[in-house]
């Protein structure tokens, strides 16, 4: 029996003030999936993520999350935004950031309850940072800050995790660690992750959606060792073979950038 569908998008389209950012996007995300949304800058990856979490209402088409509108389902979604959208100098500790994930779940007024604090502590432990709750956020490294934001998303006790460029700007080794952590979380959680980096992403995920205006799903296939060596040297990378579903593939020329996976 196949896993139940969590996200269902049908002929989704969106534009801001100019031309369409997304058009005719159709896909399903099932329970247990770990999907990467890859594509070039400006291709609509983040817009798609923001539609799924309910921050943007699409102009065309229909999207359902857990069988209802994204806004209604938003309390069941753990969202990790791009780190650049947050003020790096804001006087706040890691623990306070994680506790924000309890909004909508825990105490509405006054101080946080003991269960909220327990969940936040567990979330920090799950991301491998059990001792930094009292540290100010701008004292942490870039990788630690991303983990704190991930812990905040986990503190919402989500059924779906949506991550927007969680590893952008991090060293490859830190990215590796982050993806290993996500693979662990994927044992119990469905994950949708926007990323510009197909090379590292492809080692971790179970599905790849390529978005550049529209969406095409790629199957993951191990590329022979000699190819891997040829493109990436001894570094362990699993390449993505792109088998576009041409039903949705109009004007789908794209470039994943230097160092990304090859397009067979």
């Amino acid at each position, binding site marked *: 029996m196949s896993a139940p569908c969590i996200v269902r998008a049908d002929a989704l389209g969106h534009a801001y003030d100019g031309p369409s950012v997304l058009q005719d996007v159709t896909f399903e995300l099932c329970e247990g999936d770990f999907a990467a949304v890859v594509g070039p800058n400006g291709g609509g990856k983040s817009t798609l993520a923001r539609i799924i*979490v*309910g*921050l943007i209402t699409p102009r065309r088409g229909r999207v359902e999350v857990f069988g209802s509108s994204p806004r209604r389902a*938003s*309390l069941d*979604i753990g*969202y990790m*935004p791009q780190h650049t*959208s*947050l*003020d790096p*100098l*804001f*006087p*706040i*500790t890691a623990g*306070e*950031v994680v*506790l*924000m*994930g309890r*909004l*909508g*779940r825990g*105490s509405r*007024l*006054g*101080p*946080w309850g003991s269960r909220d604090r327990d969940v936040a502590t567990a979330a920090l432990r799950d991301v491998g940072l059990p001792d930094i709750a*009292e*540290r*100010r956020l701008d004292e942490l490294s870039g990788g630690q800050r991303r983990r704190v934001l991930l812990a*905040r998303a986990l503190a*919402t006790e989500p059924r779906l995790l949506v991550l927007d460029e969680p590893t952008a700007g991090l060293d490859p080794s830190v990215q590796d660690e982050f993806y290993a952590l996500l693979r662990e979380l994927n044992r119990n959680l469905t994950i949708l992750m926007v990323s510009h980096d197909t090379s590292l992403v492809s080692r971790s995920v179970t599905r790849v959606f390529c978005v550049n205006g529209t969406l095409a799903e790629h199957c993951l296939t191990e590329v022979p060792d000699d190819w891997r060596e040829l493109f990436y040297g001894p570094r362990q990378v699993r390449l993505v073979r792109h088998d576009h579903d041409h039903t949705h593939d109009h004007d789908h020329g794209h470039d994943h950038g230097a160092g990304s996976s090859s397009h067979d």
Partner: protein
Amino acid sequence: MTEFIQALEAFPFLRLALGAGLLASVSCGVVGTFVVTRRMTVVAGSLAHSVLGGIGAAHYLHVVRGWTWLHPLHGALFAALLAAMIIGWVRDRGREREDTVISALWAVGMATGVLFLFRTPGYQADLMTYLFGNIVVVDPGELRLLVGVDVIVLAVVVAFWNPLLAVSYDEEFARLRGVNVPAVTTLLLALTGLAIVTLVAMVGVVMVIALVTLPAATAGRFTRRLSHTMVAAVILTALLTTGGLALSFQADLPTGATTIMLTASVYALAHLVSAGRDRVRRRRP
């Protein structure tokens, strides 16, 4: 300093001014921290200037129409809350550019105040009083009003601390977690208006923005939590208003301008100290 303490014993108006400064420090320190961290300084500037319209109208009604129960600060409170609601509405659903509306409120509030004060006997002196502050205008009724504002500000901030912090740090995430962001933003704007009103008599509408923002910005450089920043900002504002009052009394200078110069000097000094500390930290292996 001894001379200032003796003067406090001798002159009731100085004691009232000192009390007003200390009471204003509470709401300004708390709200100023939100204003700085949410980068709402221009909005706060607009609120500060728009209160002149309320002050002018209340003063006119008090003097010309004989509404003796109406204090200028009542008008200031009304104008601040009205401006806060307008800005909150524009942020949420207005089609106009937000900065255009903020600028318009800034200028229209001033113009309204000037027109009403122009039609009020004694216009020249009163206009200067409200533009640049005058500690002599502080009266016991005003102190009671300041206590009320402090109680409201503290109660609201304690009760709504979690959504206020979330909206200040990450508005989008707060919205996804079911927080009514427009309502919380309007609440914050209203609190900002109230806090500004508490200081208007002492430093005037033109300079009040510096005393709302600079102590909080100074405190933020040395604290790790928003709540700690607030406590430090309250203490710092209390010291600065008291120091400004003492300095201006000793040197026979206008209290508002003296307090603002002292505040700006402390901010600049803190900036230098904090920059030096960061440089030392970066050099450490």
